[in-house]
């Protein structure tokens, strides 16, 4: 399980490798907040290499999204597989996030 942060132009891209769950969500939260405090405003989380996400992982995405919006920024998501899509649909979080099918499309959407 790890989070890799890269900069693509103006956009901070976070790759979530493995699970996003109660045991590691705090690490993701802190990494993104650090970038936000450094002045970054555009964030993309890419789930191409993600296994499963639990409710506390979803909760971190919701609270990060709110924090970033409060600073006039935006958090978008990309590359949800079918099971992650189902998870977002069950919780209606697909209505809260802008979700792209590919990383390139997500990057172009900002």
């Amino acid at each position: 399980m790890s989070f890799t942060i890269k900069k693509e132009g103006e956009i901070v891209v976070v790759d979530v490798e493995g699970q996003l769950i109660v045991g590691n969500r705090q690490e993701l939260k802190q990494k993104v907040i650090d970038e936000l405090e450094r002045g970054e405003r555009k964030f993309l989380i890419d789930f191409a290499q993600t296994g499963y996400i639990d409710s506390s992982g979803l909760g971190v995405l919701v609270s990060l999204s709110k924090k970033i919006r409060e600073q006039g920024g935006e958090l978008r998501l990309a590359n949800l597989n079918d099971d992650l899509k189902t998870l977002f649909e069950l919780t209606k979080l697909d209505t809260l996030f802008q979700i792209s099918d590919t990383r390139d499309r997500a990057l172009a959407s900002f």
Partner: protein
Amino acid sequence: MAAPLPSDVGLRVSLAVEIPSDVAYIERVVELVRHPCEELAYDPHQLALNVPVALSEAISNAILRANNEDPQKRVLVRAEVDTRRLVVDVQDEGEPFDLDDNIRDATDPENIEREDGRGLFLMRALMDRVERFDANTGAPPGNVVRLTLSRA
């Protein structure tokens, strides 16, 4: 992995795992329960979504809500898997709680921007059945949260 199994074979797996009240163990326990389901050819979506997410929720509630991460308190996970269904019991050492009183509709506009409160909701959505019993050991007895899923 061996070939898929028809649903009528006589393979039955019971598993029991005991862990300290530390969320670092959750992923490993999930994998220990998921694996026999995979060997018994459960549906890929059940293996990737229903089983891991519902089970993670139940274990993290046991660790965080019931045992308050007290390192002296343990969580016991028992699973019975066969080619028809998976039944998992997650036992904590906490005070009794009521499932229905605590479950919230996560899709309600009032709740959708909340950070917490999606655990029981997801367990209900991803399992065929979610039940709570008093454990028959311990004082206080602790809760047993039972998840049941038919093999698809």
